[in-house]
């Protein structure tokens, strides 16, 4: 038997409940939560879909660490250790382990859309080379689990949701910014509405990413450089003045 301590509650409050679950070989934390649902608490709310680390639905804080429940094995914990599962802290609670992540979708909607250059070939297709797309392909691995948003202190501690889009959405913008075919300019958006300046590169986001995306080094820092170049490069500023 393994003891799980699971947060139960709603917007108005809640507390930790203990459940004992029979551990089977290879079991992951999500299996244990399902076992609780099936046998002890059918109304225990949890969000999940693929149970294979591909959809990013079952994010939670397991013994204080933001993780996917489906990719966390029970055997990662010492025998007899109580496993505590809390909902993500950076988002409003709906119920039990489920949080309201709709804010992320709103932020994403406002990122300027992809605009491809004119097709390269008469048949309307483009030519891109593998080396050119490695970087944006890395960002496209994002499964939108929002664990990076959850761990980011700008959102988690300082609650700057109004001013800062967070690492996940910076990664989202970076896909298009570094897309070889894209012609749109998102620098103003990143600087003002996106609040990219709030990120002070603590790399917590990179550490929790279940897809091992190097969020800070490969997405955020290059985006910061682009934004800074656009805003403070005196030559570029002069050029903009001349050309309007």
């Amino acid at each position, binding site marked *: 038997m393994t003891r799980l301590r699971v947060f139960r509650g709603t917007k108005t409050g809640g507390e930790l409940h203990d459940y004992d679950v029979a551990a089977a070989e290879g079991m992951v934390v999500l299996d244990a939560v399902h076992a609780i649902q099936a046998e002890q608490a059918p109304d225990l*709310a949890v969000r999940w879909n693929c149970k294979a680390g591909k959809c990013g639905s079952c994010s939670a804080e397991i013994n204080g660490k933001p993780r996917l429940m489906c990719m966390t094995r029970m055997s990662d914990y010492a025998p007899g250790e109580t496993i505590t599962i809390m909902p993500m802290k950076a988002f409003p609670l709906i119920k039990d382990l489920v949080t309201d992540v709709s804010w992320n979708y709103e932020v994403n909607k406002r990122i300027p859309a992809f605009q491809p250059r004119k097709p390269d070939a008469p048949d309307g297709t483009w030519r*891109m*080379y593998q080396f050119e797309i490695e970087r944006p392909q890395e960002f496209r691995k994002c499964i939108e689990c929002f664990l990076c948003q959850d761990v980011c202190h700008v959102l988690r501690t300082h609650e700057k949701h109004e001013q800062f889009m967070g690492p996940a959405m910076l990664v989202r913008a970076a896909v298009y910014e570094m897309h070889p075919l894209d012609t749109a300019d998102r620098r103003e958006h990143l600087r003002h509405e996106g609040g990219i300046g709030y990120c002070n590169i603590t790399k917590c986001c990179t550490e929790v990413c279940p897809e091992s995306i190097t969020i800070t080094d490969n997405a955020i820092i290059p985006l910061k450089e682009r934004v800074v170049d656009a805003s403070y490069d005196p030559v570029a500023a002069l050029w903009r003045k001349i050309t309007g």
Partner: protein
Amino acid sequence: MPDIRSLDYDVIVIGAGGAGLRAAIEASAQKAKVALVCKSLLGKAHTVMAEGGAAAALGNVMSEDNWRVHFRDTMRGGKMHNNWRMAQIHAQEAPDRINELEAWGALFDRTPDGRINQRPFGGHTYSRLAHVGDRTGLEMIRVLQDKGVHSGIDVHMECTIVRLFVVGGQIAGALGYFRETGRFVLFRSGAIVLATGGIGKAWQITSNSWEYTGDGHALAYDAGAELIDMEFVQFHPTGMVWPPSVRGILVTEGVRGEGGVLKNTQGERFMFRYMPDMFKGDYADTEAEADAWVKGDRKQNRRPPELLTRDVVAKAIVKEIAEGRGTEHGGVILDIASKQNADYIRKKLPSMYHQFKELAHVDITKDPMEIGPTTHYVMGGVKVDAETQESTVPGLYAAGEVGGGMHGANRLGGNSLSDLLVFGRRAGQSAASRRGSAPAIPDAEVEQAIREALAPFEREGENPFAVQAALQKVMQRDAGIIRDQRGLENALAELEKLKGRARTVGVTGSREYNPGWHTAIDLGSLLVVAEASARAALERTESRGAHTRSDYPDSDEKQARAQVVIKKAGDGMVVRREAQPPIPADLLTLIKEGA
């Protein structure tokens, strides 16, 4: 009028995987006011799990490819049972749909000359699958998602539809509830597109998520639409088997596409022994020839037999295990470590590498994988018109997995991702063209549907999870890969008992995000699709594609074009056989003699 929110739209799309998103984008492009209703959060639908790629005869890797070869492969893979017109439209339009995704921002892997790369896959004559490593579905859904949110579509997330309303013989709207609040919502529209995916949650060992309870199939059935081909359920040859908690999780066919081989515990590459007559001559005879093909010499050599169609490979694996050449956990060996180097494997199959490493502590660049069949996809579905995707209920459309006909008796890997683009677009187009005021839905019908949905709260009955588990067990045992009359009759008798139990399930707690309640509601859909599948399987007295009867082990050519049709009559399910339209002579010649 019951006191619930009510919303009016030109088109309602139920389901936000590839087909639903593509339909919504198209309807919106036709200036329709569109609602996209999804059971989960946007971007989490089952499409996200598709790994290997999307089949389209782009001819980027092997220029010999064209729609005719793709059509022929699809018909042969479907064992000649497919709706030929759908298979033709699919093969002809898939390349445009893939190129269109690139215009919307998709980043497919590239060929050395900068085009979309294509990989070989089971049953496809040429390298045909546009892909992104082994996470093609994720790429597709993200691209469609971003295109969708910039197209002015209203997205209603975590909203489950429980009833369709048909008034005066045509579709009039849908009733749903939001998971977060448990509150109901009435969508009013004269055009509804079902894009709800499949039914795989009716089996115990499955690669499908909790959502796959056959909601669209059941909603359409209850609305009076016809279902076809429900006996054809694809069991994917390669699911994980160990440890128990991961049993059923998909292992992409891409592993075999990239050179992975299947072995029994005697170390034998057994697929050479399972060559069906239909494919003799198309596949390698020797390991040396197969290996040379994998190394890239594809003109002089033929494909490895591991790339036979899924029905053939799954049955071969079942036979090897039944005859005692399986592993102790009830699987066989899939080995790529001895065929490709570690860097190549990590580059081409990153999620497989990650999945085995994290969940099974197996390093696939060094060690073999243990795999066995897992419930994956239903070929059957709502009967639709090939051109418009309209069902037999006016105003109700179906696209993607919930639609029937395209894949016949067995789907080729990669044909699903292209199917949902091709027919999602067509469904969206047809639905948008139907615009106009929807007939009014009588209040009493809405009130009745709400009462039925809330009934489990009134009872102190059985736990719905227990009934769901019992149903999965019955289907796994009696309506699995190998069926016979006795098992299927037993399944139907058991399902009858389960219907009774489902009527008495009770739930506790509030209506807010209550999985017990959600499961109680989904049970209704599961029971419809399980019964439909078992009844259709009993009716088809032959083995064809994914449908294997141990009491009728051979294919019966007289039944090749016979279709089992299921329809609701009163409270019962009526099963009948119907002859499909004959395949036109020129296409028949093409299939028989090659393109």
